[in-house]
């Protein structure tokens, strides 16, 4: 096989794995939109905040240290201990559940019945608030997230495939971190589907997603379900934050990964978990292949960001609700 063809396959494989990472971000949007009709602008910042919290807890950082020092004239920054990864993840999840409760109690409870655009605007405010709190709580320096995830290309894959082409082919490059992210995403999606299908809370969540009023009439607590959904979105945000943060360190530009999720949502639909996954894979492969075949050789490169949106718009022309979204029919 020619080296060019094999490198094309390599681009597809890497596109699939990049798509999984995009889908991880998109999942959080889908969960909240499906259950409450809210497009959560703060999902990217939630990924940042959860990763900051995880890194801070692991390193024994004192939250709000700068504020405490400024008010009381102290000079404390660290507790002097390191928290094991698993315990830190659990503590971070507790923080995200508390955050979910606060969001429900202090924001959306007061906005029940408001127009979707009002709810959307509230999430914009929430995003900026959370970013500020994250800065105040953990500082703005870049944090290394040492959670034991592997880095670098898989030498096994490279060695096993290097003989497929001629001297110009060096074997497939597959990032070990991307492989882990794929496995984690599969487990996460399977877990979310199992939760929503086979647990009482999951069924209640689906009932609320289908019809708020009907769910209320059979005694389902809307408040509880919304806290549950925002907590699950917090879990998804944490997973996305860990995977992206492991690549670049935990820093404030992590919140911009939400930009990668938007074309995925447009393509996969805002209400479908499988849609987020399939949408992510299509966007990942589509943008990488376009860059490889057309962008880099003919257009000067850096086409991925805008091509993802072009691809999503093309799909929208034929399926406005996205690949797996619910078709809305309004009868007058």
């Amino acid at each position, binding site marked *: 096989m020619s080296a060019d063809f094999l*490198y094309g396959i*390599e*681009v597809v494989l*890497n596109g699939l794995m*990049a798509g999984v990472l995009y889908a991880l971000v998109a999942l959080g949007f889908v969960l909240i939109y499906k259950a409450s009709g809210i497009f959560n602008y703060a999902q990217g910042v939630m990924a940042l905040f959860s990763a900051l919290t995880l890194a801070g807890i692991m390193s024994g950082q004192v939250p709000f240290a*700068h504020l405490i*020092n400024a008010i009381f*004239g102290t*000079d404390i*920054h660290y507790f002097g201990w390191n928290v094991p990864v698993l315990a830190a993840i659990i503590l971070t999840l507790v923080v995200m559940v508390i955050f979910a409760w606060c969001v429900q109690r202090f924001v959306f409870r007061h906005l029940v019945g408001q127009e979707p655009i009002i709810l959307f605007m509230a999430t914009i405010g929430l995003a900026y608030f959370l970013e*500020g709190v994250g*800065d105040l709580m953990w500082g*703005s*320096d*870049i944090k*290394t*997230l*040492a959670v034991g995830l592997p*880095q*670098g*290309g898989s030498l096994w894959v490279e060695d096993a495939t290097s003989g497929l082409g001629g001297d110009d082919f*060096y074997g497939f*490059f597959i*990032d070990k971190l991307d492989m882990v992210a794929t496995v984690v995403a599969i487990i996460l999606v399977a877990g979310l589907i199992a939760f929503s299908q086979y647990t009482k809370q999951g069924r209640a969540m689906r009932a609320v997603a289908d019809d708020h009023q009907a769910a209320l009439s059979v005694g389902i607590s809307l408040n509880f379900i919304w806290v549950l959904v925002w907590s699950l979105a917090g879990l998804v945000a944490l997973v996305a934050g860990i995977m*992206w943060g492991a*690549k*670049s*360190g935990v*820093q*404030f*530009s*992590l*919140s*911009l*990964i939400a930009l*990668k999720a938007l074309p995925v949502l447009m393509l996969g639909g805002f209400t479908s978990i499988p849609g987020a996954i399939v949408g992510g894979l299509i966007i990942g492969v589509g943008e*990488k292949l376009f*860059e*490889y075949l057309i*962008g*880099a050789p003919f257009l*000067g*490169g*850096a086409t*991925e*960001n805008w091509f993802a949106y072009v691809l999503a718009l093309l799909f929208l022309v034929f399926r406005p609700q996205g690949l797996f979204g619910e078709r809305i029919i309004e009868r007058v």
Partner: protein
Amino acid sequence: MKMKKLAAMALAGTMAAAPAMAELVIPDLSYRTGPYAAGGTPFSDGYQDYFNLLNARDGGIGGEAIRIVECETGYNTEKGVECYESTKGEGALIYQPLSTGITYQLIPKATVDEIPIHTMGYGRTSAANGEVFNWVFNYPANYWDAASVMVNYLLDENGGDLSGKSIALVYHNSAYGKEPIRTLEELSAMHGFELSQLAVDHPGQEQKSQWLQIRRERPDYVLMWGWGVMNQVAVQEAANIGFPMENFIGNWWAGAEHDVTPAGAGADGYKSLNMNRVDASLPVFDEIRTLVHEAGNAAGDGSNMGSVLYTRGMYAAMLASEAIANAQDIHGVTDVTAAMVRDGMASLEITEARMAELGMSQIGPEFSVSCENHGGSGLGIVQQWNAADGQWVALTDYIAPDDSVIDPLIAADSAAFAAENNIEPGCL
């Protein structure tokens, strides 16, 4: 009697206000929040701490106290312009915009307001032509110098011959990232190396395509014009594909500690340029520690002291204070105006003897500024990251750029700017 009392009170008020009017006001357009805060915070800490040191040790500059006015830009151009507008009325003497985008917006404004701008290693490169950009200074070096210094370093590494070599430029797909392209194209034609260009879209969180391309094409060297998260991801991706890190060189905005630490041991050997030397043992740091930090007047928590960007911020403050002192000497007054500070900048001379006297021997190259040359010497060093020690190690002495390539480019670009803006080149 009443009138006398009022007059006395007015006089007392005027006298009380007098020292405040004589303060040397220096705005700090900082960015301690947002995606680029990791770079902005140490720079501002160093910038402010040095002025605080001068206040504590010398009573300011020439006996006039320095007042720092900090304004948060978040590295956002609109906010940066707002900061300029809101601080210039306080008697601002010199601006350090700390962003190429903000610089481009401030060049026409500051020219009209007659307030000098110092864009140290960033901003509009052709501002080195002082006859066109009377109020803008970009000493000690600019982007085109950086590109030339990189190539000169590689020439040294390859026995003076780069013909047949391949060099890939990975750059932030913005005006900033595209700055070195023209210079590198000229140098490519001159030295016979093959130049390929790989653009990375903002913010640079995803660079798989670019690094797969590098893995396929296997260039001899990769140069990088990156910023923010693009740097950390690029270093990580280079390590992932097994690219030899000693052949990967970033510019001076891609060479701080936080650019390499997330990649851990994988970043070992990565190189970058620097316009100033990093040396935590400089005596000036002891003075800052004693007179500023321990006195409770530090801008930050002290954790950044001695780092690449803290040192650069401190170096920038030193250059500003030396220009102000020079202006005081030239005009024979201590409460100088912005226009006088411009004169001080336009005849600034930085010598090793003076740097040693200030406790920062060899922190930067010796250089002098003139009416015509606002760009300084253009020298830069190459440093290498030692991951085990967590330190940047200087590999070279200051390397000179190829002025025969840079000067015509500056002349052409500044002439075009002068023509577009109806500027008659000349000295003030």
